[in-house]
C-alpha cells in the first residue's frame, strides 16, 4: 500500500498494479459506506417497527394545536405541522438575514477601526475583538437575554419615544405601515425610479468608458428615487396608514413588535460574528501591498478613491472565502436561539413538533436538510461572487 499514488511503475500482478489496486481500494470504500448506511437504515426500520412508532411524513398534514410567539406568515393553532415548519424556517431565515447584514456592517467597521491612525480607536477595536470572540456565543445569548433585556420595565412602565415607539420587557413596539387603498401611482413611481436609476448607471458607465468624464450617478439616482415617489405622495397623499401600538389589557396591541428573544439572538450573533469578520477584513486590507497605495496616489487618486477602487477590490479576494464561512457559522449558530425560546427551526420543528408527534427521525431529517440547503446556497452564492471578483491571470 505504499505506492498507491501515480508514481510507481505498472507491473503485471494484480496487487502491484497501482491502477487495479486503486480500483480495489475504491470498491472496498464504497462497499463499506453502503454497508454502514444499510446497517443503520435496517436497524432503524426494524426498531421503529418493533416498537410500534409511527413513521412517514403524514403527520405534516395534521393540525398543530399550539401557539407560536412570532410568525411572519399568518398562523393559527388549527394550522398544520407543515405550516409550523414554514413559520420556523422563516424565523431562522429572519435571524440569519438580520445577523448577516448587521455583522457585516459592524465587522467592516471594526476591521477599518483596527487599522485606524487613531491609537485609541485601534486599541478599542482590538480589545472588543479579543473579548467577544473568546466567549462562547451561547453565553452571549444568555447575557443579552437575561442580563440586558429581562430587567427592562414591564408594559405598563414602558420606555417610550414620542408615544410611537415603546420598549419594555415584551419587546420593541413600533407602528406598522398598512398599505392604503388606491396607491398604485406610488408603486409605479417607485418602479420607474428604480428602473431609471439602473439605466442611468449603465449610461454613465458607458460614457465614462468612451470619454473619461465621470457622472454623479449616486446623487442623481438618489434624487430620482426620492423625487418621483415623493411627487405622488404630494399629489395623492401618504401611501400608508400607520397602525399604532396601543396599551390594552396586559400588552400593547397593534403595530409591529420585535420580541426580546429575537433581539437577543440577533445582537449576540451579529456582535460575535462581527468580531471574526473584523479580523478577516483587517487581514484582507493588510494583504494588499503598500505599493498599491503608493501607485494609486502617484496616479493622483484621492485617498477615498484609492480605498474604493484599489484597496477594497483586491482585499475582497482575500476576504470573501473566510467571510463565507463566517456567514455559514452565523446561520448554524442561529439554532442556539432554542436555548432562549425563540421559535426557529430547531426549537419549533425539531423541538415542539418532534415532541408532539414523537416522530424524531422525520423531523430531524427535515431540520438537518434545511440547514444543509441553506449552507449550500450561501456557499454557492458566495462562490459565484468570488469567481466574479477573482483575479484574472493571464
Amino acid at each position: 500500500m505504499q505506492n498507491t499514488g501515480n508514481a510507481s511503475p505498472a507491473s503485471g500482478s494484480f496487487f502491484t498494479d497501482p491502477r487495479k489496486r486503486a480500483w480495489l481500494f475504491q470498491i472496498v470504500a464504497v462497499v463499506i459506506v453502503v454497508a454502514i448506511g444499510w446497517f443503520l437504515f435496517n436497524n432503524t426500520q426494524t426498531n421503529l417497527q418493533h416498537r410500534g412508532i409511527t413513521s412517514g411524513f403524514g403527520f405534516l398534514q395534521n393540525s398543530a394545536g399550539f401557539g407560536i410567539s412570532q410568525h411572519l406568515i399568518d398562523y393559527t393553532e388549527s394550522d398544520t405541522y407543515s405550516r409550523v415548519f414554514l413559520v420556523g424556517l422563516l424565523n431562522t431565515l429572519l435571524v440569519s438575514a438580520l445577523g448577516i447584514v448587521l455583522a457585516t456592517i459592524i465587522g467592516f467597521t471594526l476591521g477599518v477601526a483596527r487599522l485606524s491612525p487613531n491609537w485609541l480607536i485601534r486599541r478599542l477595536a482590538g480589545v472588543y475583538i479579543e473579548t467577544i470572540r473568546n466567549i462562547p456565543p451561547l453565553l452571549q445569548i444568555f447575557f443579552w437575554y437575561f442580563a440586558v433585556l429581562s430587567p427592562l420595565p414591564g408594559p405598563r412602565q414602558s420606555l417610550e419615544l414620542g408615544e410611537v415607539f415603546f420598549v419594555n420587557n415584551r419587546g420593541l413596539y413600533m407602528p406598522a405601515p398598512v398599505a392604503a387603498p388606491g396607491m398604485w401611482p406610488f408603486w409605479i413611481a417607485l418602479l420607474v425610479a428604480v428602473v431609471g436609476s439602473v439605466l442611468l448607471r449603465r449610461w454613465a458607465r458607458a460614457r465614462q468608458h468612451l470619454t473619461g468624464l465621470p457622472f454623479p450617478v449616486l446623487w442623481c439616482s438618489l434624487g430620482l428615487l426620492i423625487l418621483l415617489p415623493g411627487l405622488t405622495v404630494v399629489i395623492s397623499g401618504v401611501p400608508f396608514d400607520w397602525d399604532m401600538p396601543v396599551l390594552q389589557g396586559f400588552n400593547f396591541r397593534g403595530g409591529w413588535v420585535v420580541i426580546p428573544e429575537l433581539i437577543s439572538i440577533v445582537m449576540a450573533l451579529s456582535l460575535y460574528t462581527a468580531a471574526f469578520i473584523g479580523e478577516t477584513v483587517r487581514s484582507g486590507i493588510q494583504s494588499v501591498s503598500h505599493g498599491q497605495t503608493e501607485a494609486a496616489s502617484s496616479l493622483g487618486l484621492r485617498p477615498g478613491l484609492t480605498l474604493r477602487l484599489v484597496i477594497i477590490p483586491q482585499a475582497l479576494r482575500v476576504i470573501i472565502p473566510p467571510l463565507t464561512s463566517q456567514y455559514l457559522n452565523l446561520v448554524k449558530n442561529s439554532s442556539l436561539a432554542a436555548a432562549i425560546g425563540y421559535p426557529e427551526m430547531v426549537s419549533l420543528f425539531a423541538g415542539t413538533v418532534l415532541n408532539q408527534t414523537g416522530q424524531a427521525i422525520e423531523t430531524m431529517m427535515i431540520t438537518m436538510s434545511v440547514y444543509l440547503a441553506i449552507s449550500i446556497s450561501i456557499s454557492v452564492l458566495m462562490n459565484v461572487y468570488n469567481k466574479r471578483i477573482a483575479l484574472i491571470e493571464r
Partner: protein
Amino acid sequence: MSNTTHTFKPSLPPPTLNVGVIGWLRTNLFSSVGNTLLTLVALYLIWLVVPPIFNWAFLQADWAGATRADCTAEGACWVFVKERFGQFMYGFYPAELRWRVDLTAVLAVVGAAPLFFDRFKHKARYGIALLVAYPVIAFWLLYGGFGLQVVPSSAWGGLMLTIVIAAVGIAGALPLGILLALGRRSSLPAIKVICVTTIEFWRGVPLITVLFLSSVMLPLFLPEGLSLDKLLRAVVMVVIFEAAYIAEVVRGGMQAIPKGQYEAAAAMGLGYWRTMGLVILPQALKLVIPGIVNTFIALFKDTSLVIIIGLFDFLNSIKRATADPAWLGMSTEGYVFAALVYWVFCFAMSSYSAHLERKLNTGHTR
C-alpha cells in the same frame, strides 16, 4: 582665503509638539478634526462603560460570607461563586476523590511543559510518547478501576468535563481531519466523493442537532441492546464535527504547497504515503497551525453546547446553580464568571497561536 572655519550651530530640539507625550498624543489621537472627534467619542464611551462595571465587579462587591444573606452590597456577590466553586470545577465528582482530577491536570501541565522549551532536544519522540501514555493515565485517574474507585462519567461535570470533552475532541479531530483532507485531495474519485460528502455534511449542520441526534436518537440506529456511554457519544460527535473543519483548514495548507514539491517527491521515488507523510504534510501543517488552533478555540467554545443534551459541563453547572432557590438572582455573577473562564482559556490559546504564527513566519507569506 581667510581661515575662518564654518561652525555649525547646535541643532534645535525638535518642536515640542511633535515628540514626547504631547507629540505622541498629537499623532495618535488628535491628528485631525475627525480624529479628535473620534477620540473624544471613544473616551466618552469608555467613561460610560468602564467605571460602572468596575464599581459593580470590585468596589461594591461582596467577597466574604457563605450564604445568600451575606450578599448585602450593591454590586456583585462573589460569595456565590466562592461557595459553589467546587461544583463549577468538578461537577458531582465525589469530593474526596477530587485530588485525582487535580493530579490529572497537574500531570498534563508538567508533562507538556518540556514541549514548550526550544532547547529540549527530543521533542518529537517525547511528544509521541506523551500522546500515547497520557490519555491512558488520565483515563485511569479520572474513571478509576485497577485499584482506584470507579467514578462513572455521569458524575463528571463542571470545568473538568468541559476540558475532557475539548481535549479528547482536539486529540481525535486532528488525525481524523488530516485523513479527511487527504481523502478530499485524493486522485481516487470514489474516496474523494465520500470525503467531500462527509466534510460538507458535517460542516453544513448545526452542532446542536448533531448532539441531539447522538444523545437521544442514536440507539434507534443501532441494534437493540447496544448502548454507549452518553458522554462518549457526545465526544465522538464533537470529534467528527470538528474533524470536518480541521479537514478544510488542512486542505488549505496542502493547496498552498507548490506542485514542484509533489513532483520532486515523485522523482525521488516516494510513494503516496511517504510523499504525504514526509514532504507535503509537514510543510502544509506548519502553514496552517494558526487555522488549526482557531478550530480548537471554536471547539472549546462549542463544548458549551452539551448543555442542550443535559451534560453538566462548566456552563451547565453554573446555570444549574443559578436556579438553586438558596441562591436566586445570582445569574449575572455566574455568567460573568463563566465568561471570564472561557475567555482565559480561549485567549491563552489564541495568544499562543499568534506567537507561533510569528515564530513560524519565515517570510513566505506576503
